[in-house]
């Protein structure tokens, strides 16, 4: 297998972009990534997206390539709910590693602010099991709430301990010019925010987001396009059941653990060597469990650790200097690609927000309530 490098990154600000269409967002990220790669054009494009049906548009690879002046190249779309961007990275990685192409552009894009919120919320719940969960009217937040209550009860985690996570994320994201929610919040604001799906409150959840991010992947042959190519040295991907009821354990995310183990094994690295990570905190409970599954915390302790001040700048690893899904936002099918672009910039030393020094980075993108998880490891 050939080595694969990130030689260009591009992203839009995450937010509510009423004036920008899906193709506008995607092509902005694509063209920025091409510019960052010294103007080098890709031979293929892989698009990560979950819900473009909300804007009545499929056939995204053709739409985005053509709109970006790339008519004639190869391309397709990947979908795995909230980890669609991570799946696009796995596909793009494979196209380069296999030798089929030397230059592949991976773009994630999502446009959630087009339809009334109830339509969007219902669409997001398509990540759940339609036959055995959706028919009971439960939302995606509701499914995460089931896991959160179980976990907090089992490990004796307090409401205050859980609430420190969004406070920390908003502190980090305050400095990120691409973040959707650039405002610091207090513990009281989290604890007293409106209930969405008890025990999940507004600030335990990520916002609805529009946005696009892109990375240019190349083989060894083209890595010198950029002065600081970042190597993708580990790739891990795993699936679990979409339904919660048949899970092996309710307080664990099997696919998170498996994907991290696979990525570490391939990169010949361990969790304790990671300097900086972007993880998938769509809900604070998912941050807690994935920190444990990746190996950054013992089972049942993550919220206690972050309440004590761990994982902030100055600690090792630093988690989500971007502000994570809470503050940067969660443009669903783009999130995994945002994470990759952010880690690449961190390792290059040119992330425009909270910059962390380090040599080894990790990103983990979670689809569904942990039903599809992609972990990537990056080295300078």
């Amino acid at each position, binding site marked *: 297998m050939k080595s694969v490098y990130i030689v260009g990154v591009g992203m839009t600000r995450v937010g509510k972009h009423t004036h920008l269409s899906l193709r506008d967002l995607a092509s902005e990220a694509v063209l920025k990534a091409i510019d960052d790669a010294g103007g080098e054009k890709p031979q293929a494009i892989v698009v990560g997206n979950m819900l473009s049906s909300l804007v009545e548009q499929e056939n995204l690879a053709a739409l985005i390539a053509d709109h970006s002046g790339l008519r004639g190249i190869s391309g397709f779309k990947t979908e795995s709910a909230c980890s669609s961007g991570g799946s696009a990275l796995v596909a793009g990685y494979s196209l380069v590693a296999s030798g089929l192409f030397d230059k592949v552009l991976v773009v994630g894009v999502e446009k959630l602010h087009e339809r009334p919120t109830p339509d969007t*919320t219902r669409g997001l719940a398509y990540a759940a099991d*339609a036959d055995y969960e959706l*028919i009971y009217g439960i939302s995606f937040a509701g499914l995460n709430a089931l*896991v959160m209550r179980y976990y907090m009860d089992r490990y004796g985690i307090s409401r205050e301990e859980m609430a420190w996570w969004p406070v920390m994320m908003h502190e980090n994201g305050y400095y990120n010019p691409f973040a959707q929610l650039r405002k610091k919040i207090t513990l009281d604001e989290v604890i007293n925010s409106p209930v969405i799906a008890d025990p999940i409150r507004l600030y335990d959840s990520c916002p609805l987001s529009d946005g696009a991010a892109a990375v240019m992947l190349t083989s060894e042959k083209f890595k010198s396009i950029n002065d600081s190519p970042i190597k993708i040295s580990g790739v891990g991907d795993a699936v679990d059941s979409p339904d919660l009821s*048949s899970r092996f354990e309710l307080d664990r995310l099997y696919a998170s653990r498996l994907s991290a183990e696979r990525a570490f094994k391939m990169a010949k690295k361990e969790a304790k060597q990671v300097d900086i990570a972007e993880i998938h905190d769509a809900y604070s409970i998912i941050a807690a469990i994935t920190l444990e599954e990746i190996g950054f915390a013992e089972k049942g302790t993550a919220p206690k650790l972050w309440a004590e001040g761990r994982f902030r700048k100055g600690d090792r690893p630093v988690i989500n200097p971007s502000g994570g899904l809470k503050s940067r936002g969660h443009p669903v099918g783009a999130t995994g690609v945002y994470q990759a672009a952010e880690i690449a910039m961190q390792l290059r030393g040119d992330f425009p927000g909270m910059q962390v020094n380090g040599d080894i980075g990790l990103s983990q993108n979670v689809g569904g309530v942990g039903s599809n998880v992609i972990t990537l490891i990056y080295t300078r």
Partner: protein
Amino acid sequence: MTTIQRIWRLRSTLLRLRATRCLDCGYVSFPPKAACPKCGSRNVVREELPKEGKVLTYTVLNVPIKGFEDQAPLIVALIKLGDARVLAQLTDVKPEDMEIGMEVVATVRRTAPTLDGVVPYVVKFRPKEAEQRITLTASSTSTNPASSSKTNKASESGQTP
């Protein structure tokens, strides 16, 4: 909103709570699977789950998904039934009375209409305690025909079936 075809396809699984048990490793899965999630064996058989169990965890949705707005506040729980878990709506209980470990029993109730406008029936769960109260009221009536005041009281509070 779901379709009537989906409800029809799933009728026996949903109403009788039929899981799959693996004959090789013993793992019981609800929803039923074509092969065992634990060991991959295709040697799985359908098995009806018990109709009584305990609440493992629950949530209260002030905003259920589109199509279920009328059912707010909607209580959804994961319930331990024998060797499996089932996700279901709770009924005949107030959100503030919910607790982990609560004993519940299955009952058949109407749910939100399908896209075709049909009102399907599904299994929901209600507190076992409420059923015991009903049984007690009934037995006290039969063994104590004189105490008619008790019966009246029960019907006022809506506990008689």
